Structure formats: structure tokens, C-alpha cells
């Protein structure tokens, strides 16, 4: 199992390095069209061929990886912070506040995640600049994906609040604010880290789903979702198999996150 973890770690490090050095590695810009070679097969000039518009698929894959891999953790950070805020207040204050916060959480959880995401994404303008569409897509993921984590955080904060060391701290005359600021966060950190790691692959997959349905990152900026959308025009598995590379990379990276995830869950 340790070897698998090392391999998963290597994959994630490799992907992260590819994201950082995309501009140096990519042979062309993601929007540059090679009009003389549309839908070309892999060659020395185009490692993964070109798409229907003659854009270099390898370059688009690298830029798409950067978009998906940099912004999914950002969205996970937003959702984890929101979960910490809502769950923390609900778990620490208790009473009616907890009931109201949990009712709102239940409302979010009562709808299938993808349904909620599609409805809310469609509420926002679809004809926006590529940069705005990236921000909108991942901001939405972050703002809507906090509910499940908030439940876990609320339960954990409630458990911490009732623990012996908190009772002793209260008996020593430490104020509620100081307890909330100094004593709860360090004990909550493992749970928050686990929730953060859990959210990343979920958000990567959600962005891919949105992209395939045409509700994700706008053209010409690539993301894994928009790259996978090209599979729509396929008629058989033998037809241009190199077009499956984005899917294989997605599976590899998400499964590497899953391997790390199991470790974080154990630690939490």
C-alpha cells in the first residue's frame, strides 16, 4: 500500500509541476490554431494531435490541467472555510442557532448535488469571458459544496465543546471567544484537512460534468470538462484513441487524490 501511496504522490507532484511550468512545456498556446492541420493524428509537432479547430491537443491538455487542478483546491478551500464557519457556529452555539443552521444544511443536502449545481450555474450568464466563466464555475462549486462538510464540522465542534479539557478551560474562567479562537481550531484541524482533501476530487469531477454539459469553463480556455466534451463526437473506441488521454489523466489524478484521501480520513 505504501508503494501505491508513493506512486499517487508522484502523480500529484508531477501534475502540480506540469501546472506550474505549463507555459514552458506547452509547445503552443491553447488558442493557437494550426489551420493546415485540423483533427490531425499525433505527430512529432503535435504529440496528441489537434482538435477540430486545429488547436494542439497536448497544449490544451496542459492548460486544462492547470485550470482544473489549481482552481479545484481553491474551491475546496472556500467550501471548507464556509463549512468551518457554519458548522463551527452551529456546533459551538447550539440551541436554536444549531437547528436553523442544520435545517439550511439539510435543505442543501436534500437536493442531488449535480441538480443543484446545474440549476444555480444556469442562473448565471453563460455568454461570459473565459476568465469569468472559470471564476464563476469554481466559485459556485465552493459556495454550494459546503453542506456535507458543515454537518461533520458541527458534530466535531459539539464533541470538542463537551470534552473534559473544554470544561476545565471554562472552569478556569477563559472567555467563550478565547475558547472559540484558541482551543477549538487546533482540535478541528484534522477534520478540516480531511474535508478539504475530500472536496478536491469531488469538485474536479463536478467541473468535468458541468463542462461536458456546456455549463462549465467557456471556450477557448480549456478545462478537463471542456476537453472531455470532445468525446461527444466519437462513434467507437477505436476512433482516434489518443482523444481518451484527458479522460485517463483525469482518472489517474482523481484516483491519486482518493489514495491520499483514505490516509487523511484515517488521520482525521
Amino acid at each position, binding site marked *: 500500500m505504501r508503494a501505491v501511496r508513493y506512486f499517487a504522490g508522484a502523480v500529484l507532484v508531477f501534475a502540480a509541476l506540469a501546472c506550474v511550468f505549463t507555459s514552458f512545456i506547452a509547445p503552443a498556446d491553447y488558442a493557437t490554431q494550426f489551420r493546415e492541420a485540423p483533427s490531425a493524428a499525433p505527430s512529432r509537432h503535435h504529440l496528441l494531435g489537434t482538435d477540430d479547430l486545429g488547436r494542439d491537443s497536448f497544449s490544451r491538455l496542459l492548460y486544462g490541467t492547470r485550470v482544473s487542478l489549481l482552481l479545484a483546491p481553491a474551491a475546496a478551500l472556500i467550501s471548507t472555510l464556509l463549512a468551518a464557519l457554519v458548522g463551527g457556529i452551529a456546533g459551538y452555539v447550539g440551541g436554536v442557532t444549531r437547528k436553523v443552521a442544520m435545517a439550511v444544511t439539510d435543505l442543501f443536502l436534500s437536493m442531488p*448535488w449535480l441538480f443543484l449545481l446545474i440549476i444555480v450555474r444556469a442562473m448565471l450568464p453563460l455568454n461570459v469571458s473565459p476568465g469569468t466563466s472559470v471564476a464563476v464555475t469554481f466559485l459556485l462549486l465552493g459556495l454550494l459544496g459546503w453542506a456535507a462538510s458543515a454537518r461533520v464540522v458541527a458534530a466535531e465542534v459539539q464533541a470538542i465543546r463537551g470534552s473534559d479539557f473544554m470544561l476545565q478551560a471554562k472552569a478556569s474562567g477563559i472567555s467563550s471567544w478565547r475558547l472559540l479562537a484558541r482551543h477549538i481550531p487546533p482540535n478541528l484541524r484534522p477534520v478540516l484537512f480531511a474535508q478539504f482533501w475530500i472536496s478536491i476530487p469531488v469538485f474536479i469531477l463536478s467541473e468535468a460534468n458541468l463542462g461536458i*454539459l456546456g455549463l462549465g469553463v467557456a471556450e477557448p480556455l480549456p478545462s478537463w470538462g471542456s476537453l*472531455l466534451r470532445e468525446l461527444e463526437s466519437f462513434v467507437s473506441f477505436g476512433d482516434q484513441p489518443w482523444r481518451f488521454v484527458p479522460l485517463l489523466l483525469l482518472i489517474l489524478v*482523481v484516483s491519486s487524490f482518493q489514495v491520499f484521501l483514505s490516509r487523511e480520513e484515517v488521520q482525521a
Partner: protein
Amino acid sequence: MWVSRLARHLAAMIAVIVLGGLLAATMVRLAPGFDVDESQLDPRLSPETVAAMKAEKAGQRNIAHFYARFLGRALRGDLGESQTLKQPVRQLITERLPATARLAGAGLLAAWILAFGMAVTAAMTRSRSLDLTTTVLSGAFLCVPAAVLGLLTIIARSPAFLAIACVIFPKLFRYCRNLLTDSYEKPHVIMARAKGLSGTRVLVWHVLPACARPMFALAGVSVSLALGACIPVEALCGIPGIGQLAWQAAIGRDLPLLVTLTVLVTVITLAANSSSDMASQALRAEGR
């Protein structure tokens, strides 16, 4: 006692459903460009027609007013008319619900058979190679977006319910396997095995009863998972169901349809979860 509990449960459900609908209506109303309609720019339309279209939209500007009217009509069975498909919402839902029920039902059945069968086999045999194979298989499906699975079923010319099954299977399998593995490690099961009871008898009489309650809870959750997976699968595979309708409504910002679908999906999800909760509670009461 149980009547008051049921009443409380129902009241909570209704509150969540009403709030869900209100949330959807509010989101659509506050969306940028809600009042703008491209068809109003059509030079062939007379000023009176444009004015009538604006008046129709104006009726939806006040969220509370729109939602109160929607609820009042819904209680009489009138769910309004779809703005994009120009058909009564009730008719649209009635026509499309069977397709989604068939797709989600077949997907759920296939996923449960596969997940439960593999989890039982892995837990009973305790074979490391089998455990590794099933874990890798479920892990691989867990890493593929539902929309891609839908596309792959089209490319492979296989039935669409398999995509739904592949979305639900890994989540069910992992949970079932963990439950069964935990149950097999319980002292009474170890004792039963030590006394020489057959594998099947241990499973049926000692392991499964211990797992039944969480399995019912999982059954409720799996309905929600199937509904969620229906959206990309139906949209991409061209299946005229509720999932495709939700996608079309979202793209077209169809307020009456979106609100109704949100309420419908919330009702189905809550009904599935409540049924599994009640079954679970009934089992606990029987156990006592």
C-alpha cells in the same frame, strides 16, 4: 407516539420542500438578465405583443407573489406552463417521469446487485486478491464523471442504465463492504464461526441483520444519487426524462419548470430518505 413522530416528520418534510421551491424561485429571479428576453427584440413583433410579454414577466418579478401564486395553483393541480417548451408543466412531468423512473430504477437495481454481490463475496471469502480487484474496480468508477459514463455507454452502444449503475455502484460497494467487514469482526459472529456454523448461515442469520439498518439508510441515499446521475446521462443520451427536462429548463431559465422540478426532486429525495428512515426505525423497534 409514532403518530406524533410521523406528523413531526411530515411537517419537517413539507417545510423543506416549500423552502426548496422558494430557494429555486429566488435564485431564478435574482439571476442576472432575468427580465431580458431575446424574443422581445424581434422586429416582427408588434408593440402590443412586446408589452404583453413584459407584463407576463412583470408578474414574476415579485418572488413572494410569484411563489404564493405558484403554491396556490399547485394545490389545485395547476403547475403552470413552461416558458421554453410552451406546454403545461404537469403534462411535461407526467410524460417524462416514467422514462426517468425506468432508467433510475434499472440503474439502481443493477448497482445494488453488483455492489452487494461483490461486497458479500469479498467479505465472505476474505481473499486479498479479490478485495484488491473489487477495490480497484470501484475506485476506477469513482474517478469517472457521470457525464463521461453516459458518453461511454453511447460509444459502446450499451443501455444507458449501465451508466447510472456505474455511478452508484462504487459508493454502494465501499459502504456495503465496510459494513459487512465490520459485522464479520463482531464477537458474536466470530463465536458463531468458531462453533462451526456454515458461511451462508452466518451471513444470513448473524451478519446481514446487523447491517440491515445502515443498508436501509444507504438505499434512501442511493435514490438521490441515481436522480443526480440521471441529469447528465439523460441529457447526453437523448432520453426524454426528468433529468433532460431539468437541463433544458436550466439552460432556458424556465422559472415555472425549474421551481416545479426543484420541488419534485426534493419530494422524491425526501420521500426516499424518510421511507428508509422509517424502515430502519421499524427494524430497531422489532429488535427491541
